[in-house]
Structure formats: C-alpha cells, structure tokens
C-alpha cells in the first residue's frame, strides 16, 4: 500500500501517466473525428494510424519502413530538444521551424552548389541556425522582444531566405532541389552499415547522432554548472542576476544552442537525401512545430523526447495508411494537435492528483486520530 502511494507521488511517474493519458485521449478524439467523417471504416482507419509500418505484409518491408520512421524521428527529436532546451531556460523557441529551414538551406546549398563534404555542410548548417537563434536571444536580452513573436518573424524570413538560396540548386525537371545521389555524393551522410541492417539507404548516422544529442542535452541540463545556471536564469531572471550570473549572456547562449540543435535536425534530415526541398514552398515546415509537441509530450525530459518523437513520427507516418477514398492523411496532424492541446493540462493533472492524494492522506490521519481519541476515551472511562 505504501509503495503504491509513493509511486503515484513520484513526479516522473506522474509525467509519464499524464503523457499516456494525453495520447489515449488524443487517439479517442481522432477516432471520433473519423466516426463523424465516415462511420464504416473508422475503426480500421484509426488502427492503421496506430500500426504504421506494421501495416506492411512482410517482415522485411516492416523493417525497412521501421528504418524510415526512425530516419524521420531523428530531425523531430533534434527539434524537440531545441524547444525543450530553451523552455528549461524560460524561453519558448517557436523559431525552431525557421532554424530548421536555415540548417537545410546551408547544408544543401554548400553540398550541391559548392560540392562540400557532408561534415562541413552539417557544421555550417548548424552555425546558420545558431546565428538565427542568437538574433532571437539578443533581441530578447537587449531589446526585450518577446521570443515567440521574433521567432515567428524569423521563421518566415528564414523560409523565404531558404527558397531564394536554394534556387540555383533546383532540379529544372521539377520544383525540388537535386537529389544528392545524382549531384553531390560527397554530401551524403555515411550510414555505418545500418543501411544493410534495415535494407534502407536513408538510415544514416543521423539517428545515433540525434540520440547522442538527447543524452548530451540531459547531461548539460541536469549534471553541469552551466545547465544549473541556465535553469536558474529561466526560473528567475532577477535572482540569477543578483547571484552574479550573466543573465543576458545566458539567454543568448541558450538560444544559440537551441538554434543549433534545430538546424542540426534540418541539415541531417536533408543530407540523408530522404527528401528534397521544394524551392516554392509557401509554408514553414511542420517539423519545428511538431518538435514542440514532442517536447511537451515527452514531459520536458530529453530522454522522454526520444520516445515521444518516435511516437509522433509513428502516427504521422501512419496517417498515410488510412483509406484515402474516405479519409485524409492529415487526420494524424489533427491527432497530434489534440495531444499538444491536452499536454497543456499536464500541470493541472498533477496538481489535481497531488491534492487528491493529500486529501486522502489527511483523511487517513484524521481517522487514525479519531480512532486514537476514541481509544483514550474508552481507557478514561474504564
């Protein structure tokens, strides 16, 4: 009995339970939406969203598509780490989407137009994102501009900038950039043999790098002095300043790191040649925004992010398997949006649970007291 209570009290467990609850409720809402659209195939449709690569008939194909899901998870994980890192310091990095664009822009431009090797492309891409993050940070630190607003503005500036920069890298046959395989083999990410393991050439070192970054972020935030200072700045800017921390430097540094993480996601994804950039794209890629979802669903824990990013990629991919004659793939976006909306209630859920537990405990103590009082009364009478 005692053990069970301590489990419910455990913050990590509460976060986990809240996330699972969000997922379940999100899926239920998604199912209801499918029921409204067309009641006949709704059950099957929601199952194919949940199953994703398990929809494939053979185990080889399943493994291949599992690999592809992993390949898409890596950039999402990095975006979610970017959001998470900034959020721990009290900044909401909605600019992750734009930083992601810039990472793509520099990596592809240098790879295709300048024929640079992949590692230089990657580093330059990261720098581009960091600079964009730094702009956000400097504006916040010295001009008091809300990072959400400046982030959004930079998203659109980065998007159009990326389109302009990648015009020369466009394949005249379509609207997309050249495939790296055909034009810039030196810019392809190495696969370290994982390609054979999954029988899919898009499974590259991006995946281990992303997971490694999650661990690094966890260590930096939880185990180092720098992480402590950054979090202190996020908790109370004035207190941090009073303690002699350089609060402006911390804000800018945070945004530089967050920008670099998101850009790394973009660069790694496009250097694996999985997809090509459409130089006429008119909307900011959803990866950065899904990163927000993944970060919150993961309970704002870097290790949790690994799982939540995988889950979100999983259902987004699964959206492609629904019966398209009745439904559309965006039902998965709808589900993940509902899940983030519900993630907003996590704090409420925790407070509610804790107050219930407190009340239960109080009642118990009261009961024990009453019992003890009754006993003494009895004793007095006798």
């Amino acid at each position: 009995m005692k053990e069970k209570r301590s489990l419910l009290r455990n913050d990590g467990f509460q976060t986990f339970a809240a996330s699972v609850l969000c997922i379940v409720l999100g899926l239920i809402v998604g199912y209801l939406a499918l029921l409204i659209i067309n009641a006949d195939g709704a059950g099957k449709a929601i199952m194919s969203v949940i199953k994703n690569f398990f929809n494939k008939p053979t185990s080889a194909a399943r493994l291949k598509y599992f690999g592809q899901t992993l390949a898409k998870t890596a950039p999402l994980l990095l975006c979610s780490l970017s959001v998470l890192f900034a959020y721990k310091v009290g900044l909401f990095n909605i600019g992750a989407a734009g930083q992601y664009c810039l990472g793509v822009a520099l990596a592809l431009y240098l790879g295709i137009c300048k024929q640079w090797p992949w590692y230089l492309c990657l580093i330059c891409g990261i720098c581009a994102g960091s600079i964009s993050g730094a702009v956000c940070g400097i504006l916040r630190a010295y001009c008091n501009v809300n990072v959400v607003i400046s982030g959004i503005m930079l998203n659109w500036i980065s998007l159009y900038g990326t389109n302009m920069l990648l015009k020369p890298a466009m394949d005249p046959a379509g609207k997309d950039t050249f495939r790296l395989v055909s034009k810039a083999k030196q810019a392809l990410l190495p696969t370290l043999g994982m390609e054979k393991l999954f029988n899919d050439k898009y499974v590259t070192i991006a995946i281990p790098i992303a997971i490694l970054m999650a661990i690094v972020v966890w260590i930096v935030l939880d185990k180092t002095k720098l992480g402590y200072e950054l979090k202190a700045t996020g908790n109370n800017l004035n207190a941090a300043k009073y303690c002699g921390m350089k609060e402006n430097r911390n804000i800018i540094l945070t945004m530089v790191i967050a920008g670099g993480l998101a850009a790394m996601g973009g660069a790694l994804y496009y250097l694996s040649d999985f997809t090509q950039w459409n130089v006429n794209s008119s909307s900011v890629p959803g990866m950065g925004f899904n990163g927000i979802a993944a970060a919150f669903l993961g309970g704002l824990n870097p290790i949790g992010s690994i799982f939540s990013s995988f889950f979100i990629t999983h259902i987004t991919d699964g959206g492609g398997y629904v019966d398209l004659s009745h439904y559309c793939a965006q039902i998965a976006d709808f589900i993940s949006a509902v899940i983030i909306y519900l993630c907003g209630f996590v704090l409420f859920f925790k407070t509610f649970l804790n107050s219930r537990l407190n009340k239960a405990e109080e009642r118990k103590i009261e009961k024990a007291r009453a019992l003890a009082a009754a006993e003494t009364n009895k004793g007095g009478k006798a």
Partner: protein
Amino acid sequence: MLLLIQYTLIFASVLLLVALGGCVSEHSGVINLGLEGIMVMGSLGGALVMRFLPYTATMGGRFGMFFAVLCAAIIFGVVYSCLLAVACINLKADQTIVGTALNMLGTALATVAVKSMNTALNPDDHSSEIKYINAKKAFLTNIGKFELNWFMIVAVILLVVVFVLLYKTKFGLRLRACGEHPQAAASVGINVFKMRWAGVLISGLLGGVGGITYITAGVSTWKFENGVAGFGFLALAVMIFGAWDPFRIAGAALLFGLFRALGNVYNAFDFLKAMNIPSGVYNMLPYIVCLIVLAFTSKKSRAPKAEGIPYDKGMR
C-alpha cells in the same frame, strides 16, 4: 497605385481586426497566441457559407450573404476560442502551449474537414480547397476602379466599438482591471473568470472576422492546408507595436499592411520592377520590418501587467 492602396487597406483591415482581438484578450489578462487558429476557423465558417448558400445578385441577396458570412465567421471564431478560454482560465494551463496547439489544431481541423467534405461530395476530389468566386462578389463594391471590400468598413466600425468598449464603459474598465491586477479587481467584487472569458470570446469574434476578411482579400479560392500564413502572429506584432491601444494599433496595421501589399503588387511599379529585387525579398519585407520595429519599441513595454499569468484567488 490605386491597387496598392486597395491591398494595403484590405490587409490593414485584417491585421487591425485580429490585433484588436489580441488586444482585448490581453487587456483581460490572457495572451491569445491561438489567434492564427481562430482566424483559420473563422475563415472556414465564412467559406462554407459562401460555398453552400445560393447567391442572388440583388441588394437583398448581397446583404443576406454578407450577414450570413459574417455571422458564420463570428460563430466559428467564438466557439473555437472557447477551447482557449476553458484551458487557460478555468484549468490554468500554460497559455503559450495551448495557443500554439490551437494554431496547429485549427489548420489540421480545417484541412480534415474540408478534405473529407470535398471527398464526400466528389470521390475523386482530394483537395483542401473551397471556391467562392461568385459569392465573394456579394460584398465587393466598385467605386471607380477602387474595389471596396465591405469588411474594410466592418473593421473601422469594430475599431470604434472596441475603443468605446474598452475605454468608455464600466465593462471595459473592469476588463482592464483584470489584466492589470486580477486580485485587486476581485477584491472589489469583479468576477475575474467572467471578465477573462469575455475577453477571450471577444477576441474570438474579432479573430474570426479577421480570418474571413483575409481569405476574401484578393483571392477567390482558399486552400486550407496553408492556414493563414502567419497573419495571426503578425497581428500580435502589430498589437505590441501599437502599444495595446486601439488607435495606435490601427496606425501600425496600416504600416504593416502597406509592406504586405507591396509583395503583391510591386510588379505594377516601374521603378521597383527596374531594381530587379527577387520576389522573396518582398515576401520577407513585412516580417523584417516587424522585427526591426519591435527591436526599437519593445524596451518600454506597456503590456497589461498580469497577462499570461493564470488567475489564482489565493495569490497576493
């Protein structure tokens, strides 16, 4: 030139309406980052009416269409903003997360709804577009070469209404008190929850009207996958630049509207065309201007003091 003025006015009306929405909500103490999503829902409501309501070109038909579209946009916007109100006011959720979620949800919901509607009507149609070429004519009046969109007038009327509501009525005073110091407001018997609900619902109304105005500006089909291209956030920037004051917001909206309009019509100007600037630069322009302006104006913030903080009765 006339075209530039026309586009400037219509984009300025959109920004004005949405920024006013943000302004009312923030004065009540709730940061409404979900305006983008509310705009999408408002435009969806209006577009559905324009798609399905039969339109006759008589004066009565035009007014009927106009009011039906307006009402639909308002209803969709207000209902959708309830999601924000419940989460942020009653359940004390993080306003930034909920706002962001509502933006994603708005686009996703509208896309799913329109796509499944199109597919249901025609099994081969998987697009997320609604066309409203004819119905749109209901609220366009040509004055010479200038095409007056009735929503421009709506924007001006609502500007005055919001100003009077916020600064000349008892309700407005109470609403603003809840954004500055909700505990003090509560101590004199104002129901903070009610006031904040009112603030969010009004912002839903204004955001919805802004949304329908946006999709009737210059185009007559709308692809709902695209959302509203960051206009909700641009409107928030307009609001900050306008220092949370309705008339200053109107001025800011005109400025941003001008830069946004330049992107649409720069080809009509010989000297701009001669400079041979890539179109991407014009697309970036409103956002760049916004950043620069914010950098210079944000230092001394006139934001309502309690905005973004969930109301807690027990706090001092």
